[in-house]
């Protein structure tokens, strides 16, 4: 028992700065990540709103940006994508919820390296500030998209925003890489070394498995993005030719020669595809956790779920080429990438069927977190099914530069991952803040968000098949797209509605934080370790004791047990199991 206190290297902090700003406590750091992501998501959402309004009223003068020129639109697009992918989808599920709950769920007093953890957050924060600074420098934000394709991104005179703005963008990404690497290092070491007595790998909750595998993906992927970014900075500022061939810009021959823009694409997508799973795997973990808890049933096929997460993570590194079918790659390579990509459908289907199997014949408690978990499964299927279409070069080539792809990846990587975050927020809110969120407004928020997001992104598939290109800012003057304008208007209205609905969430969050009804230690009657400790958890998570684990994470409705759930720390003799 005493070992907990002794291993826990730092004492409970005193004073506001040490406690809430430069805190070493993984719980505070987790909340810092969550609030950073919450800020970022509103910035990103505002940018998308400007884009949607511009698409249907191209001459409208908008707040903060004025009239949107084609290059302004590309700047909004770039910053929307970058902020959402890096500072929301990577930051909140892993850095936020993972930081807060991974140590508690494995029975550890803190992360393995608390100082590194603090550095990781503040480095992320600096990256965010540098990213936002790109809006305010001469020329404004870059316009090379979140994928930063060379040579557009590698030349300083290729467009407005490609001077200092693009340098800030790359610098921010590089800083973010370092922050993510520090975070991943901490997650992996913590999971391997700090599990409580009895918490074997195969007794870890699926959330922990998801965060663990996500950390491995981040560990292997972000180093590659970092080196790609360094090469890009050298090309831009020191005259090297890694990515830039002999090129003429505005009649002026540039000094570069011999580089290959495809080199950037390979390096970027070697990071970029695992990044998709970095965004979605934590959501899968949360969905598994919640479906089992609120269905009051063990998760269907725990081991299969674990191996499916591993398989998805592994295959995620094999398929980067499917983003590059348009680049003129050899059909043989394209075939290999295509087969590997479709193979991801197998573990994904295993997960989906196991989720459905968990729900089968269950007495489901339809509370807000569960609604979001079911919504996650729905969006994962809707967004995922278009994946095998796009995995085939013959279909990808006509669809690649259309709104079809926008609909596909927003559903699966954007909205599904966001639903995972909402589920996690409603589920863990009582543990984090000691109060319950408002259930009724939670349901209203769910219904509006689910319908709203489907109304936004489903029609985009049709727009794509009708050949509406992506990344273009203005469609109102294009003859062959005229009949699609009503659908575009519909999407914009749906976007306005959905974005407005998010204020319900924020008000609910802030109101419940201070005024919500007090939560008990285990309001959802769940089994995992975070529900065994006080609400909110004390500084060392378990108040000086080390939990001992005797059970798997999903022992619900076990025959012969006194209650319909067995906590992981319940004595081994509770049932025959």
């Amino acid at each position, binding site marked *: 028992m*005493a*070992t907990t*206190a*002794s*291993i826990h*290297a730092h004492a409970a902090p005193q004073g506001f700065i040490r406690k809430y700003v430069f805190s070493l406590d993984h719980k505070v750091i987790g909340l810092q990540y969550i609030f950073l992501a919450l800020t970022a998501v509103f910035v990103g959402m505002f940018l998308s709103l400007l884009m949607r309004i511009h698409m249907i009223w191209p001459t409208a003068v908008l707040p903060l940006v004025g009239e949107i020129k084609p290059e302004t639109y590309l700047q909004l697009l770039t910053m929307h994508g970058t902020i959402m992918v890096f500072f929301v989808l990577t930051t909140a599920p892993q850095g936020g919820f993972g930081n807060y709950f991974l140590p508690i769920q494995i029975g550890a007093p803190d992360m*393995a*390296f608390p100082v590194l953890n603090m550095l990781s957050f503040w480095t992320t924060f600096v990256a965010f500030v540098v990213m936002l600074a790109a809006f305010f420098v001469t020329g404004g934000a870059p316009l090379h998209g979140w994928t930063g394709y060379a040579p557009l991104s590698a030349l300083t005179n290729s467009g407005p925003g490609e001077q200092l703005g693009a340098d800030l963008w790359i610098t921010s990404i590089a800083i973010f890489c370092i922050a993510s*690497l520090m975070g*991943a*290092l901490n997650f*992996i*070491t913590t999971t*391997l*070394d*700090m*599990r409580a*007595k*009895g918490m*074997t*790998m*195969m*007794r870890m909750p699926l959330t922990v498995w998801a965060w663990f595998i996500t950390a491995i993906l981040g*560990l*292997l*992927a*972000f*180093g*590659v993005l*970092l*080196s*790609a970014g*360094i*090469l890009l900075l*050298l090309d831009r500022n*020191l*005259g*090297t*030719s*890694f990515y830039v*061939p*002999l090129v003429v810009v505005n009649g002026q021959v540039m*000094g570069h*020669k*011999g*580089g*290959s823009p495809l*080199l950037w694409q*390979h*390096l970027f997508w*070697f990071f970029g595809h695992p990044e998709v799973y970095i965004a979605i795997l934590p959501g899968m973990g949360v969905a598994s956790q919640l479906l089992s808890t609120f269905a009051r049933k063990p998760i269907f096929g725990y081991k299969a779920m674990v191996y499916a997460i591993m398989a998805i993570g592994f295959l995620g590194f094999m398929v980067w080429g499917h983003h590059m079918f348009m680049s003129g790659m050899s059909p043989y390579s394209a075939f290999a990438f295509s087969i590997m990509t479709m193979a991801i459908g197998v573990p994904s289907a295993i997960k989906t069927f196991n989720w459905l199997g968990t729900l089968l014949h269950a007495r489901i408690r339809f509370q807000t977190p569960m609604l979001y978990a079911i919504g996650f499964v729905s969006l994962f299927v809707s967004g995922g099914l278009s994946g095998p279409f796009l995995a085939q070069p013959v279909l990808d080539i006509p669809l690649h530069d259309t709104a079809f792809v926008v609909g596909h990846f927003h559903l699966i990587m954007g909205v599904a991952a966001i639903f995972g975050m909402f589920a996690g927020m409603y589920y863990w809110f009582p543990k984090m803040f000691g109060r319950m969120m408002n259930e009724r407004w939670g349901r209203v928020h769910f219904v509006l968000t689910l319908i709203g997001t489907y109304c936004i992104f489903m029609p985009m598939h049709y727009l794509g098949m009708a050949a509406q290109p992506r990344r273009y800012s203005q469609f109102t003057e294009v003859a062959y797209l005229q009949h699609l304008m009503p659908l575009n208007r519909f999407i914009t209205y749906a976007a306005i509605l959905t974005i407005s609905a998010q204020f319900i969430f924020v008000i609910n969050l802030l109101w419940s934080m201070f005024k919500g009804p007090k939560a008990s230690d285990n309001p959802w009657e769940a089994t995992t370790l975070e529900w065994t400790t006080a609400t909110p958890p004390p500084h060392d998570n378990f108040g000086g004791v080390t939990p*001992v684990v*005797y059970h*798997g994470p999903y022992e619900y409705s076990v025959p012969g047990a006194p209650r319909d759930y067995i906590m992981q720390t319940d004595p*081994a003799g509770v049932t025959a*199991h």
Partner: protein
Amino acid sequence: MATFSSTITVRPPKADQGGGGSVRPPVRGGGGDGGRNDGFPDYGRRLRRARLGLLVATAPIMMLFVSLTSAYIVRQGLPTLDERTNTYVRDWIPVNLPLALLLMNTGLLLVSSITAELARRQITRQAALAPVSSIPGVSLGENKSFPWLGITVVLGTGFLVGQWMAWRELQDRGFYLATSASSSFVYLLTAAHGLHLAGGILVLLYAAIVSLLQKPVEARRIVVDVTAWYWHFMFLLWLYIFGLLWFAR
């Protein structure tokens, strides 16, 4: 006592496949901590954790250099349009490396790796003997405190200076950063390695400063131990980079 060639010993946590009813035995710290349950930091366990952290941290460092290597190989094979003859040619100019200087630097780093290992063993011994030597009246004889740590820092700094001299030599031979993709990679790879090694030097300096303060020798041992392993990794990484630059000119 670990031999020089042994790898980092990290005891993987036992994964009880199946998750049945069995309970793992209590988790004990690493060597030398038995019976210390009275509020002392569990140094054995912290050392093990720090080594595991280092092992994990080598993965992204390797990925960084693996991706630079793949960029190197791809870039080497690329054709470029020659505007005078309007034909495709290779613009990769093999770099005339200052071989003697680089070999000397390699030797310097090898020696520093050995001294780092000696520093690691020295402090391991000190940490093991610390509880005994604190007993009044017990003498352990001559306290051998040869400054291996300081020598490692000096040799490491010497390596960095040598690399800088190699850069000057390259510039004298007409190879600047943007001269050719080949020279870009020479500068980039050596700079990336040098930065990582400089990080190691900073940590060793930190360990030296900590030794002046009244910190327990066990805490200092963790810093020195992990940095020594990191140092060996940096030496192997340099061998790899040197080999790549020389054999894949």
